[in-house]
């Protein structure tokens, strides 16, 4: 078995008296899509923020490529190849696609105090990377605000991939999208996975998870109940684990299994 790109072992996170994460273990291997499922308040955000260096775990071990690592800030995590695409903070709508794509890492030309952004290169690379993700932009200087929600997620994913992400954490990328846009994003996840990047796909939609996931981990009230391989678990069981069992089972009966 290959070494996981990142391995989180027994991660606990306490905020004062609140135990947000009570010993969560999770790993991502190259070229897989590992779905992290959980209902609102299950600790998904806290967990990915720990993985991306925003929070420090109260206890537990993080290993990158098998070596113990401590992330002091998001930059450390980024340097280790862990890129996070946040649902609503991915893009600045007033700025152009190119400007967003290169934000913070603009390619420059010229020398001394007269350096300027190399827009020819920036535009060309942006168009290429977007085309690889299956989106043909009309022009790279159009504002991100003119793109659809799914396309915005794709720009953010393309950006992370271009800048050398090895682990891509997607925070509920499909939760605000329509049917067609969702399928676009899922197709993008599939493409990214095939390049050998490990994808962490956070969602509370079991169907989206089943569509692309290789492995599934369910978080419930800061705890996991292990990780299941694809084919070992049915959508109903996942749904059941997420909701913590009982009530949904009753509901499901009366709704005829439609949730």
């Amino acid at each position, binding site marked *: 078995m290959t070494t996981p790109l990142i391995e989180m072992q027994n991660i606990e996170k306490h905020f004062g008296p609140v135990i947000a994460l009570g010993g969560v273990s999770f790993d991502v291997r190259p070229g897989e899509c590992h779905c992290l499922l959980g209902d609102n308040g299950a600790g998904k955000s806290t967990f990915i923020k720990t993985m991306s260096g925003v929070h420090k775990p109260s206890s537990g071990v993080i290993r990158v490529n098998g070596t113990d690592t401590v992330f002091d800030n*998001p*930059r450390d995590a*980024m340097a280790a190849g862990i890129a*996070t695409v*946040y649902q609503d*903070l*991915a*893009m*600045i*709508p*007033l*700025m152009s696609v190119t*400007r967003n794509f*290169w*934000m*913070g*890492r*603009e390619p*420059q030309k010229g020398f001394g105090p007269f*350096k*300027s*952004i190399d827009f020819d290169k920036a535009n060309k690379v942006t168009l290429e990377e977007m085309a690889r993700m*299956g*989106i*043909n932009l*009309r022009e790279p200087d159009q*504002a991100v*605000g*003119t*793109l659809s929600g799914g396309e915005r997620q794709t720009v953010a994913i393309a950006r992370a991939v271009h800048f050398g992400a090895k682990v891509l954490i997607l925070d509920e990328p499909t939760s605000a999208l329509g049917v067609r846009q969702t399928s676009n994003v899922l197709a993008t996840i599939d493409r990214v996975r095939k390049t050998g990047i490990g994808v962490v796909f956070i969602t509370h939609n079991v169907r989206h998870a089943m569509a692309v996931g290789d492995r599934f981990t369910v978080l419930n009230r800061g705890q996991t109940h292990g990780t299941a391989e694809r084919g070992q678990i049915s959508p109903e069981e996942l749904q059941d684990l997420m909701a913590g069992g009982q009530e949904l089972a009753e509901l499901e009966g009366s709704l005829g299994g439609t949730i």
Partner: protein
Amino acid sequence: MTDERLKQVSSLRRAMIRPELGAICGTILVFVFFLMIAGDSGMFAPEGIQNWTVVSAQFAIIAVGACLLMIAGEFDLSVGSMIGFAGIVIAILSVQWGWPVWLSIITAFVICVGLGALNGFLVIKTGLPSFIVTLAFLYILRGLTIWLSILTTRQTIIGGVKEVAVGDPLAFLFGGKILTGLFQWLGDIGVLQTFTRGTRMGQPVVDGIPMMVIWAIVLVIFGHWLLTKTRFGNWIFASGGDARAALYVGVPVNRVKILMFMFTAFCATVFATCQVIEFGSAAADRGLLKEFEAIICVVIGGALLTGGYGSVIGAALGALIFGVVQQGLFFAGAESSLFRVFLGTILILAVIMNTYIRRLITGER
């Protein structure tokens, strides 16, 4: 996968739809209007042109700073007070304390840019809106200016700067005129009118380009280049567009904002220095309401009040509109109080148009 629902956009439309469009239309409108009502009043003779060019240049100098700061997502309401303060500092140091003028000017720049940094630092550290922090400085600086002036001279106007500034190497950069030879030649060959009597007989009516105008042009070009062509410009847009998103990808948002506060203070000091050297005096009430005039220029120029969007060229055109309207009504012999009515109307029209254009560009709904 091209989206079949996107219409092809003609290149003409693409060239037209830009943040400055509202300001360009406004400029054309204002010029046509004044050509009609004041075309024969001397407004478009060399002297008249110099008159409204200088006034527009004054607005442009502070508008460039205000524009970049607003795009970075912050305001500076202390610009007007900073102008008064910088002027008084220069006058006290050079006239009262007898420092060389160049040293007084440099000291004023250091103090004011430092105050700009303090403004920015307080905004960043406290997380308060810049509106409040700089409003406080509007009062603090104005009060200090009057107090310092009265403390040293028992007056609120300090004169005599012109006398001490003669031959000063730095003062010329702010108060002189360039291309005087060219203008004299233009006068000699009869292209420009010359004075026919008095002490300046034989000299052209316009004897050069004031440094104020040069400063305005240089600052506008610099601001435009910085904003649209450089990495730092991208960070200015990003800091104002969404500070958190910018932070997450590694943009040093705090540094960008503090530097923009310092740049705004720098522009205010340039304005103040030009004025002091030009008039030969400093007054404690200089620069009153300038902060709002700068913001008006910027907003006419298409910038978004909440940051993340705007254009330095637009702000410069806003300044031009402002200067032409203010001086044009004077040339047209209109009641000077009508100036504000006119300005308010232009402001509303420009902002409505800018909002519409911005929606076209950015896809806001």
